């Protein structure tokens, strides 16, 4: 505890974080904060410093400011964490205390701005700015084309796009996205069910992906990287969301970049730099389904428990020549629905198996 007012004022001048004033908060953090606050107020109170009224008032004012910031940080769960992001943009001042998630090309900083949860996606290498531009263009196209559409919920949202200049002078493209809460990636589901998920439980996931792809293709786009890590599912309401549009291209253009660790999940036309088509996405969606049903690499690894009709449907999506493969997501959606009805009768909501997903 500071013995006199001068020490306290000096400390106040040096700090940049409320935790530097209030220290570690044990137990019930709010009560602990309140106790430390009262101690500091008592120490600085003008009644105790009759000859230093102005200094005492100033100390109190600053303590109150830091107290408010500490309370705000506690409610955001970031008290005591150090800042990872501090950006002045034309759209506001953004601060984040969270470690970024690292994707293939980008770091993604979760942050809260005016109560809204956002994800600030920054490309690590400026050479990949074009891919971020592709994402921004695709998400703008989706917003324009699907505004008010019930299926809009299968896609991420872009708020802003801008450039950040690094100390070395390189420009990095930034896309400011909406944070999607309560969801898990399909990769984590696949990890949680190494022997495969029952088709009856996996069916809705495929349906959501196909509906999202059908809309994507109607807008003239190919997603270009339909991989387990780019599909988010919400087990509560069975929504599915297609994320990461960096690899997307207009139908008929070639895909410029792949996710190297998933090379085996790309159809031949992508690796041969040939034009991407709706069939390209359907091939990759079928590969996701294959993994979800328990096959690590190829169709013949599927357990005999996976119905033959389903295996045949997947095979038809995985034909190497794109023009022989399924090329229409709605057609595949219909055929899959018919197959499910034959196997399980009319569709009904099945709660997702209770399991810890991360």
């Amino acid at each position, binding site marked *: 505890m500071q013995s006199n007012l001068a020490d306290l004022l000096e400390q106040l001048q040096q700090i940049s974080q409320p935790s530097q004033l209030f220290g570690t908060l044990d137990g019930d953090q709010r009560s602990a904060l309140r106790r430390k606050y009262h101690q500091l107020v008592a120490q600085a109170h003008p009644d105790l410093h009759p000859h230093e009224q102005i200094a005492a008032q100033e100390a109190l004012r600053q303590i109150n400011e830091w107290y408010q910031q500490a309370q705000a940080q506690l409610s955001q769960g970031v008290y005591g964490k150090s800042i990872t992001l501090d950006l002045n943009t034309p759209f506001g001042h953004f601060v984040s205390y969270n470690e970024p998630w690292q994707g293939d090309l980008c770091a993604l900083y979760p942050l809260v701005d005016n109560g809204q949860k956002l994800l600030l996606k920054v490309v690590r*290498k400026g050479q*990949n700015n074009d891919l971020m531009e592709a994402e921004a263009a695709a998400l703008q196209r989706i917003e324009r084309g699907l505004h008010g559409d019930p299926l809009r919920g299968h896609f991420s949202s872009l708020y802003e796009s801008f*450039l950040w200049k690094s100390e070395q002078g390189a420009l990095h493209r930034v896309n400011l996205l909406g944070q999607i809460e309560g969801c898990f990636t399909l990769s984590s589901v696949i990890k949680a069910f190494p022997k495969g998920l029952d088709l009856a439980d996996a069916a809705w996931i495929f349906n959501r992906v196909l509906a999202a792809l059908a809309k994507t293709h109607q807008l003239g786009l190919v997603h270009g990287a339909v991989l387990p890590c780019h599909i988010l599912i919400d087990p509560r309401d069975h929504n599915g969301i297609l994320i990461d549009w960096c690899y997307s291209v207009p139908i008929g253009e070639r895909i410029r970049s792949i996710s190297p660790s998933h090379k085996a999940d790309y159809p031949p036309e992508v690796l041969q730099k040939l034009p991407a088509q709706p069939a390209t996405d359907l091939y990759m969606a079928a590969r996701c389904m294959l993994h979800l049903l328990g096959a690590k690499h190829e169709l013949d690894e599927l357990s005999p428990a996976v119905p033959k009709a389903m295996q045949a449907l997947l095979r038809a999506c995985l034909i190497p020549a794109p023009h022989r493969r399924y090329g229409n997501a709605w057609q595949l959606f219909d055929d899959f629905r018919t197959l499910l009805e034959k196997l399980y009768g009319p569709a009904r909501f099945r709660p997702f198996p209770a399991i810890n997903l991360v």
Partner: protein
Amino acid sequence: MGHSNWSDAAFAARQAERKARKTNAFDYDQHVRSTGKVAVHPEMHIFGKTRESRDSDMHPQSVAIAIIFDVTGSMGTVPRVLQQKLGSLMRVLLLRGYVDDPQILFGAIGDAYCDSVPIQIGQFESGLEMDDNLGKIYIEGGGGGQIFESYELALYYMAYHTSIDCYEKRAKKGYLFTIGDEKPYPYINVDQVRHHIGDELSQALSLDSVVSELNQRYHHFHIIPTNTSHGKNSEVQQAWRDLLQERILLLEDADAVCETIALTIGLCEGSLASLALGESDLHKAGADKQAIQAASNALTRFAKSTPKALPQASGTLLALEDGASHDDLDGRL
């Protein structure tokens, strides 16, 4: 390459010295014509070579700018105009600050199916050497009877045999301006690539694939001077438009070629909010009125299509590089 500092004064002195000696910039061209020995100047020879634009202490923010023009019969006057106007291009770029440290490369193309010297490409230079390079171009004035020239060979070379720090270090694209009044051939010929550049290709490459590779690292524009033999040919214009969309510039007056290049770079860099501002910049830098008007006309269509420059943010991002599990460019196809 690209280490000496451009000086406006040096260029003026050089011009004056030439006037005194009564020689023109195209020394090598005259040399070829007087000796009858038709060959590429050794320094413009690209076989087995890479052209590099590098940052240096003097030029820490280099920007590669390549200008490659058609020297076939229909285009004969353009290189001479370029050489005369060069002083003002450099001055406008530097004084107006469109780019920090421009490094300029000059090259010439003809028709690889019938010319003796169909491709000549110099180094990226930041000073007086580029005038030298222009002087090393032999203006063959050849070309076939059709309306194709070997632009694609130059595009292939720029796409696969240049190394530019602006992109490699700072992810900032360089510029390529091709100038000519004919169409590129739709495929890159395997034999021509072997003969002129020294690469062994297993099959002919499509022009589209080369352009898409090139676009990764360069803003590519094609300028068609319309007062040439085929400049008004709609087939030629359409071929370039299919390839480059709005990045084709129709230039009524070949004299204005440098002004057009300066304005285009200004617009791309976002340092010019509008074409009108660029016009006044050029005027202040001493460009003549007619040339400014011609440049501005050529750019009207492109200026309309350029999206507004993205806003910029400042600040710190910690842990940006943490957890990158591989080179981020590994996935590039």
